């Protein structure tokens, strides 16, 4: 069998199996991923799913524990050290910050 034919077979097998996976997934309706709605509060500054491209920090794919740790640190700040991000962290409980951090850590940058 020629190389071209082998290549075409492999590619079409991949395409067909992708289609099969997609068809399987079509039948289940699941709840939105945990933390997505909370994390979306961040997208208008940090970009969709944290994929910032216009100046604020990129959060997509960053370590969940690092994001969570930074948010908690920011929440401790007072007075002159309160930037807009520090102010924002006061709106969320620890549990919510964890959900946000975990969601963002799973996004592809």
């Amino acid at each position, binding site marked *: 069998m020629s190389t071209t034919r082998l290549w075409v077979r492999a590619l079409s097998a991949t395409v067909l199996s992708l289609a099969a996976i997609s068809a399987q997934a079509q039948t289940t309706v699941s709840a939105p991923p945990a933390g997505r709605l909370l994390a979306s509060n961040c997208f208008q500054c940090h970009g969709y799913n944290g*994929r910032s491209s216009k100046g604020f920090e990129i959060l997509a794919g960053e370590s969940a524990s690092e994001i969570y740790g930074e948010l908690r640190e920011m929440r401790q700040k007072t007075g002159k050290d309160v930037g807009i991000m520090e102010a924002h962290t006061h709106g969320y409980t620890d549990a919510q910050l964890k959900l946000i951090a975990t969601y963002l850590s799973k996004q592809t940058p």
Partner: protein
Amino acid sequence: MNRRDFFRFTGFGASAALLSRLADAATGQLGFVPTNTGIKGRVVVIGGGMAGATVAKYLRLWGGSGVTVTLVERDAAYTSNILSNLVLNGQRTLTSLQFGYTTLASRYGIKVVRGEAKAIDHVGHKVLLADGTSLPYDRLVVAPGIEFNVIPGLETAAAQAKVPHAWKAGAQTTTLKSQIAAMPSGGTFVMTIPAKPYRCPPGPYERACVVADWLKRNRPGSKVIVLDANSGILAEPENFTHAFDVIHQGVIDYHPGVTINSINASTMTLNTSMGALRANVINAIPSQRAGSILTASGLANAPGQWADVNVLTYQSTVAPGVHIIGDSSATTQPKAGHIANQEAKICADAIVRLLAGLSPDPAPVTNSACYSPITSQTASWLSSRFAYDPATAKMALVAGGLVEAPSISKDNYEEMFKWFNTLMEDSFA
């Protein structure tokens, strides 16, 4: 094997899907519409401003290809109110603040209809457009923004053109800019602020600062007189007090608790609770109410003619299946573009869940962020955060309440553009 044989062998449909996924991956920076959520529904969105554009986009991103979204908008593009005060001092052009709909249409498969909604049949589940078209829906989102109440004396179009509010960015912004430029040195600019709630709490104070800054440098001796119907500065009271009393000392005169009885556009005179004033430029910002499609459809049922909603889903309290977001809704949250973007996401998530037979998220959180230019080089910011309070069924201001920038700075001014650029990308791209 040639290319034609390859497509015939694999099936053109499968290849097209694969190529489309690869293309999506290339633009995946801003998300792609999933094809496998299993969720179906027809959603119509009335209004393509901050709320409407954002809800249309997120309905597709989170609902998937089975959720069809039709966006009805009467203008060819949205003109941002945010940063429009920088048109007044020449730092931005109106064109640079315009955002079209072709990206939303092509990237997310949103059907954009250029037209005007005339009536909502919330029993029959359809929207009637001015051109006679009828749009059936499973869920409707109405985001028409605001209408202005008439200030006595300014009933005619001519009077309104002479005394612009410029509170819906566009032609009036250009008019106001020209009027300011035509002021003599030692001239008087009067701004009137309506009683809350009104669109953009910091907006009028920000405008007073930007105008004062420009007049100081270009029309020395001029004054900016601010007549506020409210009992005090509603947003960033410390920063704006400092801006009025120190940074723009001698230019801005701020008077709280003043009601406007009438304005005479011919004599450029205001009749107010503190007496009569004459001015070269009068920027009268009228009190506001919900967009006219809502009043026409009986959905503006909250005091002041705003639309009462359930803040877990933004459903109208009088019309199930109709969701109302943005400035026209009556909630405890401020009327602001950034908040509209947040409400849109809560609403999109709720609609997607409802279409899937699930309950809405029981604990939504929204945040407000806004940068305000104070001079041509410095800015301040505010932040507030709201969380659902089941006891009151309202969005309650949380921990720390309203926070304002600890200082007015050049750094804030730079950050303002990062915020604006990303916010507009999140809503329109």
